[in-house]
């Protein structure tokens, strides 16, 4: 079962901006009239062919792109799915963009981390925010629960097979929920300003 989380067109517009391109330039590159392309972005009617070509034009890993656009498949009920992180260069660009927005939201809501987080999630999807903001060395995991994707950040993993008292699944994880991970990043950002 596929689930879609946020409007595709809005996310594609961000990707275009992060690559320092305009919609007009991108439409040209796709061989589509500007008005048509703009309407497709607004109405979420981009074709598969255009999405593939956009991935090449914007140099975005397709595997990552479908995650960032909110297209998820089913997950093994017992193991959380490890999600590929975006390319470092791309993250740096995306991060600047998201941090700028984060800073504005912090200015508007200086005393409420939860309000900042809610506004961020209204504009971006959870996976995209986590992938952009959280440290590169951590992994993002996804679980599907009652048809809804939930994201987690794994901050620490080690094989502790040296401990006889633990069983087969002695691979240790330290999971932080997506919500808490965003809270951490917001608080850290507040500290740095």
């Amino acid at each position, binding site marked *: 079962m596929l689930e879609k989380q946020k409007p595709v067109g809005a996310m594609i517009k961000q990707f275009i901006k992060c690559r320092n391109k305009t919609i007009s330039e991108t439409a040209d590159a796709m061989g589509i009239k500007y008005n048509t392309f703009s309407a497709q972005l607004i109405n979420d009617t981009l074709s598969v062919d255009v999405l593939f070509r956009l991935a090449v034009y914007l140099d975005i890993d397709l595997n990552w792109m479908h995650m960032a656009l909110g297209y998820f498949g089913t997950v093994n009920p017992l193991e959380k799915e490890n999600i590929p992180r975006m390319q470092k260069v791309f993250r740096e660009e995306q991060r600047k963009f998201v941090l700028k927005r984060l800073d504005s939201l912090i200015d508007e809501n200086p005393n409420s981390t939860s309000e900042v987080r809610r506004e961020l999630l209204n504009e971006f999807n959870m996976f995209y925010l986590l992938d952009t903001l959280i440290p590169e060395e951590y992994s993002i995991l996804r679980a599907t629960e009652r048809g809804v994707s939930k994201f987690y950040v794994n*901050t620490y993993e080690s094989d502790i097979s040296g401990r006889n008292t633990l*069983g*087969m699944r002695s691979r240790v994880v330290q999971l932080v929920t997506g919500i808490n991970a965003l809270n951490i990043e917001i608080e850290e950002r507040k500290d740095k300003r």
Partner: protein
Amino acid sequence: MNILFCNITYLKFYDGRVDGELKPSSGGRWVRENGDAHEKWNFLNYDGDCYGYVQINGEQLHIERYDNVISTQEEKSGMIIVWCAEHPVYGTVIVGWYENATIYRYCQSSISTPVTGIVRDYWFKTKAEDAYLLPEEKRTFNISRASKTGTGTGFGRGNIWYADSGYAKKNIIPNVLSFINENRKNRINTLTDEFKQPDELPMLSKEELSQYESFGEEVNLKTLNYAYREYANSPGPDAAYDVASSLLELCQFSLAIPWYEKVIEMDPSDFNTKGTLVYLYQQCKEYVKSIDLAEDMLNQADCKERDLIDELYCILADDYYFSNDISKAIEWLDRIIKESKNEELIQYTKDTKKKWMLC
């Protein structure tokens, strides 16, 4: 006197929350290395208990210093653990304490499964009802540093103080015990009853429903209350699931189990919820139930879902191992070795089998 003073990083809530919590002085908000973060969960109500951690020099707590404890003894109950932390302005103050706590000679690790997500290292354990965390304005009792006030009057260079000097027994401990008696009523940590279904379950108003929806994935006592009320007025598997997953995220595994069972009862096709429940049973040491459910899931699994089947075999092996049925546990390891296509898992299983055969 069965009392131990521990010095930890200064925080407000010590329950792992980020929103509204101070940044630990001993490290960042992310868990980056062992010993960096465990004490920030010292007052987390973890399935009805609190687990306490303090960074020490050395590998054991010398519990033989207490009366009636022999040198080979590994734990002692009936302890008072006094938690202290250095406030940037007021110095080292008592931030809370445990009563009726068990102290362990060696650092323990909590059982952890993929659904629970936190591995807790701890030296002390007590019921949540016996843990007392004070609000900041009540943290008024200073504990000295021996370097300033003299040997036996406070913490030395380490983070623990046995307070067994003549001076401490006469001048400090009685005052600490008075302080404890006066301040029990001021605690702010969450007790287990607060997670249980309330007696009154009025329908959610329009405003409350809208607020509930705006919370999204966020889970706290308020959203839990809303989830209980939503289920009471509109019972169904999704509403039951909201209660179950809220309790799980609030680390109330025993309370969550009956709600997950309710979801499956109402929607037997919900395979993902079964996946959560099979681990929860294991987490709560209900191994027979975990085994039954894992076997049920095996019967339903498509033989092409090799990863899922491997995982279920691992769960079954663990369930039997934790129940001390080693021979049965090894049977399941043998099935993994024979049937799995995952070379890394096969090798790992062979190594585990060697260890378990020594048990």
